């Protein structure tokens, strides 16, 4: 009994701590700036006004569109590239392939801050010959984030449990290897793709440092860049800022809630094998 009270007590406190900043954010989005600074914790009726002010003062719609372009293309391409590789590493085994895999894993140890300057100069060089790929393009914001060793690792781990006989059956039935991949592997690994999609989309939607470096003109900015400039203005309208943050958080939160079940299942497939392997 005591244990139960303790468990629920701890979990309720953790829940309140986790949710409070959200509640405050949502409540503040419905209040006047003055009320926000005075610590009002009750919902107000100013959301529509805040929303109108937001549209009038900041280019949030273009920023949302930019973010959507970047995140959706990153998610689709990342999942394709990483799952092809994860499949390749797990299904076709050879010693030299494992060496390549381990080398790729080393890239997880490289901090982005160390890559930032050389990447910036690389895209600077590209700008001179192909301006549509260079600095201040959304493509430049996408390219370096497309392939992560983590995602390849994630797909490889999750593939370990894959029933390989099905693949062989497909091959015998005359499917090409790409056919086997797209017609058998991809549909079977739905939960893994869902978990990977959530992780990638959220990371891309929320990415800040590289877009900050590479996207320079205001009309190219993504949502985190916009929020960041709002947060540093001198005479902030808190109601408007909170409304902007609510809108910025909504897409990632919605995707998470819609796909939550698959996410948990996908993560389980990943962690299970991690444990058995050692």
């Amino acid at each position: 009994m005591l244990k139960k009270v303790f468990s629920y007590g701890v979990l309720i406190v953790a829940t309140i701590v986790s949710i409070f900043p959200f509640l405050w954010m949502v409540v503040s989005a419905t209040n006047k700036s003055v009320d926000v600074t005075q610590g009002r914790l009750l919902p107000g009726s100013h959301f529509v006004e805040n929303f109108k002010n937001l549209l009038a003062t900041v280019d949030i719609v273009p920023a949302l569109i930019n973010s959507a372009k970047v995140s959706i293309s990153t998610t689709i391409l990342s999942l394709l590239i990483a799952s092809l590789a994860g499949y390749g590493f797990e299904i076709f085994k050879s010693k030299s392939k494992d060496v390549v895999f381990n080398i790729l894993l080393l890239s997880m140890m490289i901090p982005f801050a160390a890559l930032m300057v050389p990447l910036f100069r690389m895209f600077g060089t590209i700008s001179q010959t192909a301006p549509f790929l260079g600095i201040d393009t959304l493509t430049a914001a996408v390219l370096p984030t497309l392939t992560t060793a983590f995602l390849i690792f994630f797909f490889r781990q999750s593939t370990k449990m894959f029933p390989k006989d099905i693949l062989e059956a497909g091959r015998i039935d005359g499917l090409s290897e790409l056919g086997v991949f797209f017609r058998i592997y991809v549909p079977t690994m739905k939960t893994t793709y869902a978990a990977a999609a959530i992780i990638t989309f959220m990371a891309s939607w929320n990415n800040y440092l590289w877009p900050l470096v590479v996207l320079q003109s205001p009309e190219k900015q993504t949502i985190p860049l916009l929020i960041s400039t709002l947060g540093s203005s001198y005479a902030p309208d808190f109601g408007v800022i909170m409304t902007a943050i609510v809108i910025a958080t909504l897409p990632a939160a919605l995707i998470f809630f819609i796909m939550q079940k698959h996410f948990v299942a996908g993560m389980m497939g990943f962690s299970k094998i991690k444990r058995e392997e050692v």
Partner: protein
Amino acid sequence: MISAKTSTNTSVSYSTKKRITKTTLIGWSFITLASVLICIFYFYPMVHALIMSFQSGTGTNLKFTGLDNYARLLKDPTFITAVKNTVIYLIIQVPVMIFLALFLSVLLNDKNLKFKGFFRTAIFLPCVTSLVAYSVIFKYLFGVDGIINMMLMKLSFVSEPIQWLTDPFWAKITIVIAITWRWTGYNMIFYLSSLQNIDSSIYEAAKIDGASPIQQFFKITIPMLKPIILFTSITSTIGTLQLFDEVMNITKGGPGNATMTISQYIYNLSFKYTPDFGYAATVSYAIVIMIVVFSIIQFKVAGDRNA
């Protein structure tokens, strides 16, 4: 592992040597794109940064200056402060967060617990916010006349407002609280998924042998989760060593340089002060070295427990 080997063997058994070469080629073609992209966007820039770290100059006019940058690094007070701050975040935040995440995941793994899904979602929720968005929220929550101070004073925990963002000590604490809030749920999900894969009969056997919940936690849960704990502590360490968004948006590195991190210093050196890409590259190698050192330590610690 085993099943993969058998399937390769069967495919070998009824095929000629030609088929093997073909399969190998197809296998390689599946991993080519990813490997090429990682080489272009990770390894090539890394080598480029190494070369740049021996160069100096403003903007893109770089000249080779040998080890000058490395000599400058060791005497640079801002760099030393940034390293100290980063290490402080690391040694306080990562262990606290990992323990907290483990603890919560064990509570949530209780079969008889009600509202499990609700608690899990609520505690994971901070992970869906962008680093920038929650940083801005925390900046206001922890302002001198922010809501945290208001509540602390109403509850009479403190008699005057805490200078969360303007006192060097409290500013660091604010950053630690912020990162812990954001990432505990994320790590908890990893533990929770692994816990659900542990056979409950192990715990039942331990209970019959008279093991207390605390003993079960330290003698069963932690050893069983060791690989995933290692994985999360390494990723958290790498994350903390790269800390940028929060500091940039909560304190801007201040007061003074009290919350400045290495990533932020690199950013300032490259894009805020007169750009010195060469020296910025030198500083970035400092993070690389720290990540390698800390990861080796963590592997060693985990390995020793195994023996």
